[in-house]
């Protein structure tokens, strides 16, 4: 079996989601040697991590005409790394974190190799026996993956000798290998077509300001129940008092009350704060998909039967236009008095 990971680096560190994907791949490969592709030459820190996680063969993309993030060039390199697959002997699995880059690179690889990308996996296992008559004889994979951004799980069988798997971060804990690997690092320069090179990113740093929603320790979110753009003054105040960031539901962004970058949910940002406070939010599954990783959740809602009231740890039945100002007042006095 050939198992290869697409690994993302942040400076001289492997990003956490990739370590989880590597752990997933090592288990899927069941002792098969593990290879990986990184886009830049890894430093000593990243190499030590990869060794600890059992990655033996590290290849870094080194094609002369690639100057930025080039998803098709990355896919071409991965295709070359699993090329022995073409001889029809081995089973292959290519694994990446289910990030924007991971999914994108695997989608390109799927398109050029004809292999299926099973996106958002939480589990995958090699199955030697697949029911006769399946499209791919000679083996397959049993997989579990998310649908509706995690609100549903799907059990499926991949009838093929090769598969591409993107891994949902929260489904796997990053665990070093029981035996560290001896790492070799080599460049890889796949043959590239003009089209492969046509899509390359030029990067600029984004200007950061305030507490970032995705990594905030506390998120105070407002929904339609806040009543209008003006109502968010008190939501902002509460977020500031708790050292957190403001989040919103889609009802709020659709109404134009707040910008989309503050939206929490399936088509917004996923957050996993220590505390999530949902104010005037009903708790649609697409919203919960973005905040169910919170350690503690408080909901304030006039409707005791709103779905969010069942999914939170603590509930306050009440009108946010009354409760929030009183809460902010109490916190301010507390701070002033201490």
């Amino acid at each position, binding site marked *: 079996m050939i198992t290869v990971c697409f690994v993302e680096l942040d400076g001289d560190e492997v990003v956490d989601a990739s370590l989880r994907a590597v752990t997933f791949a090592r288990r899927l490969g069941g002792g098969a040697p593990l290879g990986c592709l990184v886009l830049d030459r890894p430093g000593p820190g990243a190499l030590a991590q990869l060794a600890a996680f059992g990655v033996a063969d590290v290849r870094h993309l080194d094609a002369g005409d690639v100057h*930025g*993030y080039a998803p098709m060039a990355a896919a071409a390199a991965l295709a070359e790394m699993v090329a022995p697959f073409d001889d029809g002997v081995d089973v292959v699995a290519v694994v990446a974190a289910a990030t*924007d880059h991971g999914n*994108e690179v695997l989608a390109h690889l799927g*398109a050029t190799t*004809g292999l*299926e*990308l099973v*996106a958002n996996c939480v589990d995958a296992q090699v199955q030697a026996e697949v029911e006769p008559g*399946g*499209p791919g004889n000679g083996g397959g994979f049993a997989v579990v993956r*998310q*649908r*509706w*951004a995690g*609100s*549903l*799980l*799907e*059990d*499926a*069988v*991949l009838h093929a000798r090769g598969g591409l798997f*993107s891994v949902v971060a929260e489904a796997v804990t990053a665990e070093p290998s029981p035996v560290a690997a001896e790492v070799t690092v080599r460049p890889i320069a796949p043959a590239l077509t003009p*089209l492969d090179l*046509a*899509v*390359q*990113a030029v*990067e*600029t*740093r*984004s200007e950061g300001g305030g507490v970032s929603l995705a990594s905030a*320790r*506390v998120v105070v979110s407002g929904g339609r129940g806040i009543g209008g753009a003006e109502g968010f003054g008190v939501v902002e105040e509460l977020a500031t008092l*708790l050292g957190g960031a403001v989040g919103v539901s889609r009802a709020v962004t659709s109404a*134009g009350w707040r910008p*989309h*970058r503050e939206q929490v949910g399936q*088509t917004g940002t996923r957050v996993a704060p220590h*505390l999530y406070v949902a104010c005037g939010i009903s*708790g649609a*599954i*697409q919203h919960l998909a973005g905040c*169910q990783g919170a350690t503690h*959740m*408080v*909901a304030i809602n006039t409707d005791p039967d709103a*779905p969010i*009231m069942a999914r*939170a*740890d603590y*509930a*306050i*039945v*009440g*009108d946010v236009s009354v409760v929030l100002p*009183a*809460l902010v007042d109490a916190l301010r006095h507390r*701070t002033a008095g201490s």
Partner: protein
Amino acid sequence: MDVLVYVKRVPAVGGRIVLTPDGREVDTSMLGFTVSPHEECAVEEAVQITERHGGTVTVSTMGPPEAIEQLRTAISVGAHAAHLLVTTGVDAGPIATSRALASSVRELEGGRGRPFDLILCGNEAADTGDHQVGVRLAHALGRPCATGVKQLQIEATGESVEASREYRGSQEHFTLRLPAVVTVKEGINLPRYPSLPGRMRAKKADVSTATPTLEPEPLVMQRLRVPRTERTSAEVLGHGVDAVPALVALFETLGVVP
């Protein structure tokens, strides 16, 4: 600028997902239908492009006959033409879907005598979240592709498009020669609501149809499950302002107030 947009009909699930007794589908008997917010934004982006640069917006979907409803919604916000690839409603899978869409694009473009300048898809469908139909379609057509795009601008010459998105604190900018395929994310724009004349136009609009050929997909669904959630009922801290002291105490316990 002629733009082709792909949308997918999905159930409008609200507070809770209920499955059919065989566990193979979402029970839609009590639900309406919609498309992903990403796709709503793709339609809006296409309409804005043609408002700025002239041209047409064609919207298309592959789905059951009822998916004509989602095409009409797109017409009501400004799409000019609609094309329905009629299936029995069973999900075809990403490989089969992208192949069917690619052959439909070739057919539509054959009829027009020239390619669509731009094809827009959502970054991922709301239900399956496969993250790949747009990319596969681009490869099948031999066109460049950018995904997850949050900003799009047609160059003055009309020969290329600038696409950008955010990733891990950086902006990534792509320049794609047209014709190209771009998948977009919600947030790229704020979709408009249908106008009354738009609704009238949508009601009367002709929708062309075709029947796609669908190949079997190697990934075969066995069943769906609703994951068990740890939280099933909250502790009620109180009603109205009377709950404030308990809430402040909770914040202290959680260590979120100084």
